[in-house]
């Protein structure tokens, strides 16, 4: 009998109990405290610092909600930077994009990535790739500082697939102003940055409020949306940001055509109807975000709407 796992829903005061069928791997790589388990309800799951990162049951939902709206909004990303996500779930979907020519990928922990290749095969891409793929293992914050010059203005899409920004996680250092500014500098004209912004529980939404506030200070336009993720027991928030274009088209009906044009691997759970629902944020969440927003959001200089 494997004992159940107590998983925190909030920072404190709300923990849920998940039945564990098997612990497939657990340990500490020196960079990451990890556990790979098989949940009775949600299948194989990766936990970092005790927090669920993805579950087999709905990882496709999470990863599509992270990347597919931004890909559809851009339309034809040729060059993509992925920060994090080497444990799987991202490249196995991006590899189906016909427009993709080059992908720079950085993540922290090669040992954990190796464990995930073994125990989470459903998240892994199939090589060989039809595009230039460069994977490096390094602290993403240091990598961003190092690549800010070389890859400045290179990317049509910068995709941050980071763990929760827990105090113990390197991700906290990528969600600060300096690292987000470095990530923004990688964008080509018309390029988009996309990231998760944490859960949407109105009782503890400060991380989302602070992250969105930082994005609004750095970018001309930011669209924030959410979708329920059953294995995480809450809705999860995501943000797409642009330095030089309005993201008004995100709410337009024309998105339906772009969504239909996505590779099938990127729209198992993401369709036009789901897209429309993404922007309908509950009043209780909006109120919580307003109350938690730490600083006034400055008005950004005028921007030009592009026609991509």
């Amino acid at each position: 009998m494997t004992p159940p796992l107590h998983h925190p829903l909030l920072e404190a005061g709300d923990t849920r109990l998940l039945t564990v069928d098997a612990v497939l791997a657990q340990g500490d790589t020196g960079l990451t405290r990890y556990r790979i388990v098989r949940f009775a309800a949600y299948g194989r799951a990766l936990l970092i610092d005790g927090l669920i990162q993805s579950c087999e049951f709905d990882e496709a939902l999470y990863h599509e909600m992270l990347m597919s709206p931004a890909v559809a909004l851009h339309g034809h990303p040729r060059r993509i930077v992925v920060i994090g996500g080497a444990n799987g779930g991202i490249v196995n979907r991006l590899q189906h994009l016909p427009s993709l020519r080059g992908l720079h990928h950085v993540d922290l922990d090669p040992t954990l990535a190796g464990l995930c290749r073994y125990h989470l095969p459903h998240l892994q891409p199939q090589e060989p790739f039809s595009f230039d793929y460069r994977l490096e293992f390094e602290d993403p914050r240091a990598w961003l500082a190092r690549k800010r010059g070389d890859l400045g203005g290179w990317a049509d899409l910068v995709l941050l697939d980071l763990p929760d920004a827990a105090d113990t996680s390197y991700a906290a250092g990528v969600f600060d102003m300096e690292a987000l500014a470095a990530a923004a500098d990688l964008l080509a004209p018309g390029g988009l940055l996309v990231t998760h912004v944490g859960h949407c529980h109105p009782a503890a939404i400060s991380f989302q409020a602070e992250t969105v506030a930082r994005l609004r200070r750095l970018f001309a336009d930011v669209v924030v949306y959410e979708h329920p993720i059953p294995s995480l027991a809450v809705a999860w928030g995501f943000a797409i940001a642009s330095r030089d274009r309005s993201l008004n088209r995100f709410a337009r009906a024309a998105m339906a055509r772009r969504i239909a044009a996505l590779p099938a691997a990127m729209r198992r759970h993401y369709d036009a109807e789901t897209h429309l629902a993404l922007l309908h944020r509950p009043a209780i969440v909006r109120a919580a975000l307003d109350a938690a927003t730490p600083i006034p959001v400055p008005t950004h200089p005028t921007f030009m709407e592009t026609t991509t």
Partner: protein
Amino acid sequence: MTAEQSRTAAPTQAKAPAPAPEDFAAVQALYDQTMADNAQVHDLIYPKVFGADQYIGQFSDNSADELRLMAALMQVPAGARVLDLGCGRGLVAAFLAREMGWTVTGIDLSLASLAAGRKAGHGVELIAGNVYEHAFAERFDGIYSTGAACHFDAARLFARARSLLVPGGRLAIFERVRLGDIDAADWRKLTTDWTCPHVYTAAEYGELLTVAGFRVRHVLDTTERFRTWQARSVEVRRELRREIVAATSQEYFETSLALAAYEADVSRKGLLGYAAVIAEALP
């Protein structure tokens, strides 16, 4: 969500008798006499069980990818000195020396296995002897054992391994593990018949490592694929019946098939699994 609040209780322990005494004369006889022809049959069967690119001459129930993963989890740098404990022909040692850039030394009791390894000429230093008795010139940065630790009393083995490792050195045990309560008849088949003092759970390995002065860094459960390998080894034996009989005898084939089928059955019932436990030697 910022705090580490996930917790699990200690796993329930399957019951088992106390470890029997080690018997290295019997272990040597097993590999040099009873199973002297086994390597030849192994080389016939296991490229088809694991896949041709996943068989590198290993005797343990692990694919080459699983051995690579174990080595990666040891986190021992290139150039380090590593001991393969129970190295057999030394083919895993040669593989990991190439893959990881380690300087690997192998030690084994089986003179037949070592002779076959030396004949293969893979360039790894192979020592004939008992790890408890051999006087090694230097301590090691890493020690691993793949499918050989079952012949040892783990408490005694880990104490010896600790003395052979530099502080911070890593020990990896990749071995069959007990998952359920095993009855007396099965216990005898899985221990006495294979000259194994005991079949430990992964948790017991962890506890004994802690007592011996290690900190457990990783526990990797490979039971799902182990069951696949076990079932596949029965299928492949049947497929290769003619070749196996030609290389050995009808009696050998029947005995080998019955043993493989028995082990696959025990695994399928959830009594046996496979796991790697990787630990760091504390200063």
